[in-house]
């Protein structure tokens, strides 16, 4: 009952229809699962907004469960609520040690499992899964960012409380301790991002690129906007068909030979998203690979967090 005090919404209000069983889920059911996850009552509005976001046709939670790939919902929180909940956007933001980060994503996963019926070996057919499917939630470092927040890139309003759900895998670190100019660091991003899933697979998968303060500074000191950086990285990831086609490089995997274009982009327009987070010491960034993007797969969804 104490958990329900975290929201002004009525306990019997339907929050969403939860896949895969398409069950109408009440605020109360979310609250019960939030207790099981270890949430504080003031986390509940974030869990409710996250559930609304994943249960949209755009996000396609059913597909994310059913896929043999390893993805799950990745939650990014923006707005003042990050600070009031004590969320971590700093050192070890993807890791352990912060209650809100650890339990909000967990609560969402428990609702999908307990209410929606999405269980591994049932509708969930992931070959590997990933540790983030226990719950993967963090906050953006807005104060330290030279750029606007992720939520604003996806239709939200900067400065408002919002949660963005990205269909993602586990993060993998990109190391570049020597680049001090944006062109060099863009090239590092490009060569690393090209390898996501397969260096010869393009367009299908999106990516959430987490840039740390020491890396973002390389761009901001040179006056580069986020859009400039993304545009340059995507330009560098325009790959000749000769390298991509099936059989090229002695590798059967690749793009069908009958595509008439001379080159293809690694990411479709809008497929490379950026979030600013991480500790202030370390010239690293991290790629969170996505899943099948666009209307045929799963699209990131941003929802405002309502009290």
């Amino acid at each position, binding site marked *: 009952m104490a958990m329900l005090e975290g929201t002004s919404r009525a306990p019997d209000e339907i929050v969403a229809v939860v896949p895969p069983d398409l069950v109408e889920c009440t605020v109360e*059911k979310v609250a019960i699962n939030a207790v099981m996850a270890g949430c504080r009552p003031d986390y509940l509005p974030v869990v409710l907004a996250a559930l609304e976001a994943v249960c949209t046709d755009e996000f396609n939670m059913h*597909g994310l469960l059913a896929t043999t790939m390893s993805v799950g919902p990745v939650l990014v929180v923006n707005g003042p609520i990050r600070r009031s909940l004590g969320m971590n956007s700093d050192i070890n933001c993807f890791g352990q040690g912060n209650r809100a980060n650890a339990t909000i994503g967990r609560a969402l996963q428990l609702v999908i499992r307990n209410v929606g019926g999405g269980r591994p070996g049932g509708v969930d057919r992931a070959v590997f899964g990933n540790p983030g499917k226990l719950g993967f939630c963090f906050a953006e470092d807005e104060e330290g960012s030279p750029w606007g927040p992720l939520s604003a890139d996806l239709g939200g309003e900067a400065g408002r409380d919002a949660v963005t759900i990205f269909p993602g895998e586990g993060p993998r670190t990109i190391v570049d301790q020597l680049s001090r100019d944006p062109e060099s660091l863009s090239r590092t991003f490009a060569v690393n991002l090209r390898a996501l899933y397969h260096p010869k697979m393009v367009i299908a998968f999106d990516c959430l690129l987490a840039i740390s303060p020491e890396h973002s500074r390389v761009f901001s000191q040179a006056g580069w906007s986020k859009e400039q950086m993304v545009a340059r990285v995507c330009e560098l990831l325009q790959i000749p068909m000769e390298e991509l086609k099936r059989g090229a490089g002695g590798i059967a995997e690749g793009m069908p030979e009958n595509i008439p274009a001379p080159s293809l982009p690694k990411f479709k327009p809008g497929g490379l998203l950026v979030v600013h987070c991480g500790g202030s010491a370390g010239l690293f960034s991290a790629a969170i690979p996505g899943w099948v993007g666009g209307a045929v*797969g799963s699209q990131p969804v941003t929802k405002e967090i309502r009290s």
Partner: protein
Amino acid sequence: MSTTTDAARVILDPTAERTPAVREAVARPSSLDGLDLALLDISKARGDVFLNRLEELFSERGAKVKRYSKPTFTKPAPLDLRKEIARECSAVVEALAD
């Protein structure tokens, strides 16, 4: 909401509290001869290779094969498509590939 209570505690159910409907599978067709048979392609790569071969084999055995496909493999088949198949065919083979 189901709850269990005694003087000291209240137990709440985190699940949907639903009992899945159990449906009897329809009887297997006794013969393929003249059977309206749906082949549903989920739109994954090379699913057509597998289904083309199935169509050949079923046709040789007298089935009347009709082909259907999902708009995308990432989402459940639209309800209208499921109804269309149920209306037009007596059996369905749903196939993926990779």
